[in-house]
């Protein structure tokens, strides 16, 4: 049996992969008993940030990754495709329908038992067959046959993601012999579609990819853009703990931080207008915010790349300065949350097994892979090292080229 902890992207992919290969799986998910700062539901594989799985174009790295995952029997990619919403070149999904479908598939699999309970360090040590060394300096556990003897488990996979519960994160930090590392991630706001000013926005995908009109675009004039940036920089921000430095993942830096780097930073980045021709002027606007449908009915739209950590009152006021959103009603405002990850190259083998604890694996964003697709791809450990192969004692084969993505935080150092 394989024990998987965490019912996010990597956890469900790992559980599914093992079960499809005939291995019994016990999947622990602490929601809804214990919620996280970002999750809203009890559903497995819930998307807490963007509803986009990135490009599905076959000649892009993300598209190739998807093709590889599908070839290996992925659950999340075909489910995402079955619950897609218009997203231009990207695979964007209706996050509720998608998560419901994944939950149904996992809970309905005969070989997967879903346990709705917080997985504690004590349970981990019991599953691994007793107390573990305090750090990798204590050396690897010599006898693999004794590992995983508790409760008949052959492998324990921690796939708890960046929102790992504090006790488990602390336990992982102790086992790796290093302080827990973290950075901040931010979530974009979502608005009610009926409150958008459709006389101002225009429907168009960048360079008319996809269906050509998958996105709504809020076009800024020069004056509107500068007024927005000015208000954004001056707006009050939600405080961080005193002892925490605001380290952000580069792809999710709050817009107020980007704007603080220079007045043009946003219009050459998150708000770039290239490939968006305003039908009123026949030209690209000075800057543009894109709105992407959140659901198939298009009753909700998310503000693309508008993640921020402004205080909620002022956040509404500032975002309503975006042309077309002057009367917008927000069903979710931007927030930031702390993410945890481990230093994979130092503590894990190439197949994501702890060097110091045979039988203990890590999958998903805890390994510092960025984004849902690369994170869920990480469960595709090589033959012989995949938890489902543990009982078979097969030789190890290194993973494929696209799988060998560089750890995600390397660019921020």
């Amino acid at each position: 049996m394989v024990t998987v902890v965490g019912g996010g992207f990597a956890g469900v992919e790992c559980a599914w992969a093992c079960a499809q290969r005939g291995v019994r799986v016990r999947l622990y998910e602490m929601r809804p008993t214990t919620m996280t700062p970002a999750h809203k539901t009890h559903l497995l594989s819930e998307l807490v940030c963007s509803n986009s799985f990135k490009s599905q174009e076959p000649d892009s790295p993300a598209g190739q990754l998807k093709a590889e995952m599908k070839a290996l029997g992925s659950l999340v990619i075909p489910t995402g495709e079955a619950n897609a919403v218009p997203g231009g070149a990207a695979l964007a999904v209706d996050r509720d329908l998608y998560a419901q479908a994944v939950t149904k598939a996992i809970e309905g699999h005969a070989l997967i038992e879903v346990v709705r309970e917080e997985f504690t360090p004590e349970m981990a040590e019991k599953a691994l067959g007793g107390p573990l060394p305090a750090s990798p300096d204590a050396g690897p556990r010599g006898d693999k046959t004794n590992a995983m003897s508790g409760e008949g488990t052959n492998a324990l996979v921690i796939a708890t993601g960046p929102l790992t519960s504090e006790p488990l994160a602390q336990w992982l930090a102790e086992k790796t012999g290093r302080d827990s590392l973290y950075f901040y991630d931010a979530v974009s706001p979502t608005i009610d579609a009926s409150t958008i000013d459709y006389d101002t926005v225009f429907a168009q995908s960048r360079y008319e990819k996809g269906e050509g009109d998958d996105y709504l675009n809020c076009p800024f004039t020069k004056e509107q853009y500068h007024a927005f940036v000015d208000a954004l920089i001056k707006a009050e921000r939600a405080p961080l703990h005193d002892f925490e430095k605001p380290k952000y993942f580069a792809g999710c830096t709050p817009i107020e931080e980007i704007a603080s780097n220079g007045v043009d930073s946003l219009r050459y980045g998150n708000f770039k207008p290239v490939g968006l021709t305003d039908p009123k002027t026949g030209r690209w606007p000075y800057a543009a915010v894109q709105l992407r449908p959140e659901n198939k009915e298009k009753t909700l739209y998310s503000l693309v790349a508008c993640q921020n950590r402004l205080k909620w009152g002022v956040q509404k006021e500032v975002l309503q300065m975006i042309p077309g959103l002057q009367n917008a009603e927000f069903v979710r405002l931007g927030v930031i949350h702390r993410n945890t990850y481990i230093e994979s190259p130092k503590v894990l083998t190439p197949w994501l097994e702890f060097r110091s604890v045979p039988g203990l694996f890590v999958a998903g964003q805890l390994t510092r892979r960025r984004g849902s697709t690369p994170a869920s791809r990480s469960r595709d450990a090589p033959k012989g090292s995949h938890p489902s192969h543990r009982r078979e004692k097969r030789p190890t084969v290194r993973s494929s080229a696209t799988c060998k993505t560089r750890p995600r935080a390397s660019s921020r150092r």
Partner: protein
Amino acid sequence: MNINWGLFPDPPDAPRKKDDRRQKKLDAARRAFDEWKVAMEA
């Protein structure tokens, strides 16, 4: 960082044009995946 072609080393005799370099990397990725899958299934 999301996955992108910049994460992969340039192929030997890398073409000057960016699109051609990317295509070569894509071909290598597809070849490596197919070889890995065959090895896994053997």
